């Protein structure tokens, strides 16, 4: 797998993963960790926002439907915060165009629909970070 950071000595790129589904949380965390990212995984929207506010990561992967705050709510808060430029990828089972529209309208940088291919997710994360740099 391609290394996310060009310089192996640099500290790893930090990614926040929020999903209430333990399966997806674990597998995204594993996939991204294997690829060399430092992942913080949280199970709901509120801890996602708290984790983000406490120490903003370089990228966030958010599930849309979570208890408490939804991924859209968290995304909105991120975009209103001083770290509004952090790229965000939404992960969701919503498959209609209008849902994708809502996600992008609120400011998502990318959108992956479940069921998803973990490999594709990694490529998208890599791509987003490359563009953000």
């Amino acid at each position, binding site marked *: 797998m391609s290394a996310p950071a060009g310089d192996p000595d640099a500290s790893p790129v930090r990614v926040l993963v929020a999903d209430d589904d333990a399966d997806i949380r674990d597998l995204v965390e594993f996939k991204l960790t294997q690829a060399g990212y430092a992942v913080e995984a949280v199970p709901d929207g*509120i801890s996602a926002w708290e984790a983000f506010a406490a120490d903003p990561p370089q990228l966030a992967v958010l599930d*849309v*439907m979570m*208890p*408490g*705050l*939804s991924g*859209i*709510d968290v995304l909105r808060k991120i975009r209103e915060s001083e770290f509004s430029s952090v790229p965000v990828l939404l992960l969701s*089972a*919503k*498959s*209609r165009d*209008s*849902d994708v*529209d*809502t996600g992008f*309208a609120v400011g998502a940088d990318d959108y992956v629909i479940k069921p998803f291919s973990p490999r594709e997710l990694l490529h998208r994360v890599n791509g987003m970070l490359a563009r953000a740099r």
Partner: protein
Amino acid sequence: MSWDGIASGLRSFVLWIMDVTAVPIIIYFVLINTSLLVLIGLAYLEFRAQQRRRSTAVAWQGAGLAPGVSLLVPAYNEEAGIVMAVKSFLTLRYPRHEVVVVDDGSSDQTFARLEEAFDLVHVPRELPHEIPIRAKVLGIYVPRDGRTRLVVVRKENSGRSEAINVAINAASEPLVAMIDGDSILEPDGLLHVTRPFADDPTRMVATGGAIRPVNGSRVVSGRIVRVEMPQTWLPRIQLVEYLRAFLLGRTGWSRLGGLILISGAFGLFRRDVVVEVGGLDPTSIGEDFELVMRIHKRLRDEGRDYSIEFVPEPVSWTEVPVTAKVLRNQRRRWHRGLWETLWAYRSMLFRRKYGRIGWLALPYYWLFELFAPLLELFGIVIVPLALALGIVNVPFAILFLVLAYGYAVLVTLSAMVVDEWAFHKHDRWRAIWQTIAASVLENIGYRQATVWWRLEGWWSSLRGKKHVWGVMTRTGFDEEPA
């Protein structure tokens, strides 16, 4: 007359009353307990059905047949919560929905808050007049971004029912959901209540979802973060009432095909059918009940094939009264609405064309909802009196009371089992003990008080007293657990 004379006169009078009423009372007692047993039986069936449904559920994202929904939100002086509520309604999980807020002549900053939060612009639109409206519409507004699916209508104050009628006229989707601005919807709530429409698109005309008291729970940004028990006993007892009403009552009636009451705090209707029957009746007190009755009557009169269904999943959370004063107003209003609607549709009783509505649901509501407080009051008066006069002995009376109230607790507990099995919204052990305690405490004081309030409501209607709630037609506490 001597004291003894009065006592013996009273004694023979009470004896005579008890003699005359003994047989009807016993029949009633047997009937009501049988119907409770039937409810428990239905709860058991529901219990199994829920278990089946949950363990075999397939994810449904509302693709394909999910019809568009207009969420109708009447708002009167709700500046504190309206923006948060609208934001949370807009982000519900559903493929196609819009929010229609009708500012019912608020005297506070309700409109200003919305205008600021959503950058509203005035549009010169004329509203369709499918449902006739008396009050003047002052203006229609949409967000400047041209994308957020929100419409705000300002109108002169004329009450909740007409505000909803205006919202129906302004709504553009095939389904309309009547909700209160202060209720909180489950993120998946719309998917649950629209499912019957998607499954049976040509027949379904209305659905209702279960409602829970939100008191005590932790709410952030219009979403429930953690479900908790209410802090005090009054709302806790109401929680028990809601559980019973929704898990046993509505589900049972829906199963029997005789659902006649859909919650005012969350009901979903086919827009064209509501328009066809003329919308909510602004002069009615139990307007939600009245609307469903009108739909039943119209569609049965025309011999149309249709269905009204209840969805047991909790979809909406509402603040229930925490003071006896507010609770009293609510119960008086409900019983008055119940009486007036039952009376208005008395012609539907025992007529073949109204099927189970006329033969089962309506008679049940007459007998066990409308008259229940009257009979209970009779018991409350006669039992102590008979005791005092030594007509019945103390152990007998106590036993009788324990049996009567024990039955009530039994019904509540069966609802609790269903809830625990199917939904288990409360994940603390303490909640279980508190719910059990509430189902017992309900019978001590609370029940008697509500009996009295309900009779007050009925009485004020019979005396033809004008219903005085002023312009403050409070929304939010409109759900009747029955």
